[in-house]
C-alpha cells in the first residue's frame, strides 16, 4: 500500500499543466528522434539536455521531459524499421525482420499499429516492474558501504563491455579512458590539481555533458559526412500505410508473445550492460524458438513484430531500475540520464528514494502518462511521423550539429568547451571506426570521481588497508559477478554478437 500511496503522490506531481506539456513535448520529440535513422535515444536525450537547462526546469520536470524522450525514441525506432527497412535506432534492428516484410505485403498500417500496442505493453509492464523492483534493490543497496560501492562500479564497467563490443580489451580500454578523463581537475579530497597541464579551464574538470554531446552527436555528423548519406532515406521508397488498426485476431494471436517478452525484456534491461538492443534481440530469438512452428518468422509474421518491440520497450524501463536505485546505469541512454541527474545536483542511488521521493515517484507517474500519450500519438498520428522521415540527412545533420553547439555554448558560454566538444567528436569518430564502444567512456567520465571517492573512503576507514575492498561477503559476491561478467563474453559473447551483427545496418547507430 505504501507503494500505491507514493505513486498517488507521484501522479499529483506529474499531473500539473507544465509537466503534462513537457511529457507531451518529450514524447513527440522522442518519437521523431527515434524514427530518424542516425539519431538514437542516447543522441536524442544528449542534445536535449541543454534545452532542459535553458528552460530553467527543476529536477522533476527535466527528468519528465528527458525520460519521455527516452521512451518516445523506443517507440519511434520501429517506424523506419517497418517502412524503410532501416532501423531508426539500434534496438529497432530486430523489428526490420518481420516489420518490413509485413509492410511489403501491404500491411504497413497493421504492422505500425500492432508494434505501437506492443511497445505500450512492454513499457507498461516494465514501469510496473520498476515500481516493484527498485524499492527492493534500494533495501539491498542500503547495506552497501564504500567498499561495496567500489565493487559495484567495477561490476558496472566490467559487465558493460560484454554486449556492446566483441572485444573485451577494447571495452576495458574505453572504461579506463573514461575514468582517466574524469580524473582531470582539482582533486576534491586534497585540493591538488591533476592532469590540468596548467590550463585554468581544466581545473574544475571536464564537463561530462560536453563529452557526451561530442562523442554521440558530433561523431554521428562526421560519420554522415564520411559516407555522405545525402539522399533522403525515404525518397522513392514510400510505402502505403493503409489501415491503422490491427484486426482483433492479430492482437489476440500476439498477446502471449507480448506478455512473455515483456518479462524477458525487462530482465534484460535490469542487467547491467545489456540495454534495449539485447532486450529486443533475445525477445525475438526466444519467440522464434517458441512459437514459430510454420517458419513464418522473417516473412512478415505479426508475432515477429510484436516480440522485439515489446522487448525493447520493456528493457528501456528495466534499465531505469539500476540507474535510479543504485546510481549505476545499465545502458548508454540511462548513462546520459544519469548525467542529467548529476548536473541537477541529485545523486541517484538508495538515498534518492528517501531524500527525493518526489523526483522518483513523479518520474514514475510521468512514465505512465507518457506511455499513454505515446500510444495515442503512435497509432492515429503515425502518418505525421512517416512524413517526417522524408527529411533528408543533408538538412537534418547540420541542424543536429548546430543544436549541439548551441546547447553546449548555452550551458557554459565558452569557446573552450566547444573546442573540447569537437575534440570529443573526432575522438568518437575514430573510436567508432576502431569498434571501441563509446558507452564505457561516458560511464567512466560520469562515475570516475565517485568511484575514486568510494575507494579512498573505504581504505581510509580501514587505516590504509587495501584488503578491505574484498572484506565482506557482499563485496566478494559483487567482484565474483564482475569477473564472471567480464570473462563470459570472451567465451560466449562472440556467438551472440555475431548473430546480432548479421542484421546490423551500415547506419552505425550507437549501441544503447
Amino acid at each position, binding site marked *: 500500500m505504501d507503494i500505491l500511496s507514493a505513486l498517488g503522490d507521484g501522479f499529483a506531481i506529474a499531473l500539473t499543466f507544465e509537466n503534462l506539456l513537457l511529457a507531451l513535448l518529450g514524447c513527440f520529440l522522442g518519437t521523431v528522434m527515434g524514427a530518424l535513422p542516425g539519431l538514437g535515444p542516447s543522441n536524442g536525450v544528449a542534445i536535449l539536455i541543454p534545452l532542459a537547462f535553458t528552460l530553467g526546469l527543476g529536477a522533476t520536470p527535466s527528468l519528465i521531459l528527458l525520460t519521455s524522450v527516452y521512451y518516445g525514441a523506443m517507440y519511434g525506432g520501429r517506424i523506419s524499421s517497418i517502412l524503410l527497412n532501416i532501423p531508426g535506432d539500434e534496438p529497432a534492428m530486430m523489428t526490420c525482420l518481420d516489420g518490413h516484410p509485413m509492410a511489403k505485403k501491404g500491411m504497413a498500417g497493421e504492422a505500425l499499429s500492432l508494434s505501437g500496442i506492443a511497445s505500450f505493453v512492454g513499457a507498461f509492464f516494465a514501469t510496473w516492474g520498476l515500481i516493484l523492483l527498485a524499492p527492493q534493490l534500494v533495501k539491498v543497496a542500503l547495506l552497501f558501504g564504500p567498499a561495496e560501492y567500489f565493487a559495484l562500479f567495477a561490476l558496472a564497467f566490467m559487465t558493460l563491455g560484454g554486449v556492446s563490443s566483441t*572485444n573485451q580489451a577494447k571495452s*576495458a580500454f574505453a572504461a579506463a579512458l573514461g575514468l582517466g578523463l574524469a580524473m582531470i581537475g582539482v*582533486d576534491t579530497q586534497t585540493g591538488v590539481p591533476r592532469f590540468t597541464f596548467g590550463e585554468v579551464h581544466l581545473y574544475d574538470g571536464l564537463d561530462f555533458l560536453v563529452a557526451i554531446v561530442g562523442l554521440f552527436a558530433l561523431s554521428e555528423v562526421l560519420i554522415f559526412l564520411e559516407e555522405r548519406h545525402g539522399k533522403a532515406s525515404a525518397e522513392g521508397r514510400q510505402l502505403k500505410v493503409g489501415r491503422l488498426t490491427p484486426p482483433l485476431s492479430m492482437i489476440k494471436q500476439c498477446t502471449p508473445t507480448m506478455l512473455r517478452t515483456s518479462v524477458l525484456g525487462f530482465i534484460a534491461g535490469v542487467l547491467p550492460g545489456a540495454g534495449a538492443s539485447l532486450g529486443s534481440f533475445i525477445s525475438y530469438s526466444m519467440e522464434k524458438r517458441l512459437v514459430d512452428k510454420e517458419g513464418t518468422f522473417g516473412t512478415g509474421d505479426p508475432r515477429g513484430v510484436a516480440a522485439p518491440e515489446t522487448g525493447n520497450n520493456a528493457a528501456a524501463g528495466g534499465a531505469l531500475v539500476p540507474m535510479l536505485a543504485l546510481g549505476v546505469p545499465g545502458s548508454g541512454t540511462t548513462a546520459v540520464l544519469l548525467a542529467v541527474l548529476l548536473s541537477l545536483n541529485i545523486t541517484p542511488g538508495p538515498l534518492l528514494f528517501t531524500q527525493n521521493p518526489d523526483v522518483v515517484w513523479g518520474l514514475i507517474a510521468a512514465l505512465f502518462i507518457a506511455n499513454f500519450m505515446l500510444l495515442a500519438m503512435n497509432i492515429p498520428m503515425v502518418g505525421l511521423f512517416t512524413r517526417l522521415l522524408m527529411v533528408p540527412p543533408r538538412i537534418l545533420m547540420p541542424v543536429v550539429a*548546430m543544436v549541439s553547439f*548551441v546547447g553546449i*555554448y*548555452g550551458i557554459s558560454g565558452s569557446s573552450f568547451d566547444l573546442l573540447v566538444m569537437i575534440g570529443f567528436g573526432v575522438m568518437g569518430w575514430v573510436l567508432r571506426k576502431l569498434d571501441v564502444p563509446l558507452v564505457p567512456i561516458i560511464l567512466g567520465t560520469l562515475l570516475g570521481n565517485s568511484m575514486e571517492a568510494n575507494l579512498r573512503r573505504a581504505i581510509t576507514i580501514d587505516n590504509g588497508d587495501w584488503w578491505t575492498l574484498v572484506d565482506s561477503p557482499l563485496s566478494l559476491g559483487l567482484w565474483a559477478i564482475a569477473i564472471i561478467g567480464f570473462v563470459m563474453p570472451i567465451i560466449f559473447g562472440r556467438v551472440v554478437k555475431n548473430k546480432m551483427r548479421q542484421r546490423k545496418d551500415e547506419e552505425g547507430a550507437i549501441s544503447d
Partner: protein
Amino acid sequence: MSDRIFGVFGVLLAIGYAMSALAIEESFLSDAVGPKAFPLIIAAILGISSAVIAIKPDPEPHWPDFGRFVEIAAAVVVMVLYAEFLPIIGFVFATAIAATYLAWRLGSTIIGSVATGVGTSVGIYVIFHLVLGLSLARGPLGF
C-alpha cells in the same frame, strides 16, 4: 594494422598518463590513499588493455579513402573556426555559415544549402533565444 597502431598509441598514452600521475604534487594533508593511486590503477588498465589490442588485433576496420578523410578534416576545421569566431561575429552569422557548409558537403545544392544554413540559424535563434531566452553569442550587430 590499425589495431596495432591503436594499441601502441594506447600503451604510450598509458605511460604518459602514469608519468603525469606520478608528477602530481602531494598535499601535506593527504588521506591514506592519496591523489595518485587511482590514476595509477587506471593507467595500468589502460596499458594492459592497449597491449592486448596490439597483440590480438581485430580485423581491419573500413577506413574511408583519402578524399573522405579530407572531407572530415575540413569539416573539423570549419567547426573549430566556428567555435573561435562565434563570440566575435555573433551567433546568427557564424551558425548560418557553418550550417551552410555542412549542408553543402552533405550533398545539398548551393541554393539548398544556403537555405538550410540560414533556416537553421534563424530557426535556432528564434526558438532558443527569442522564445526560450537562452543567451547566445552576440556579434557586433547584437545578434
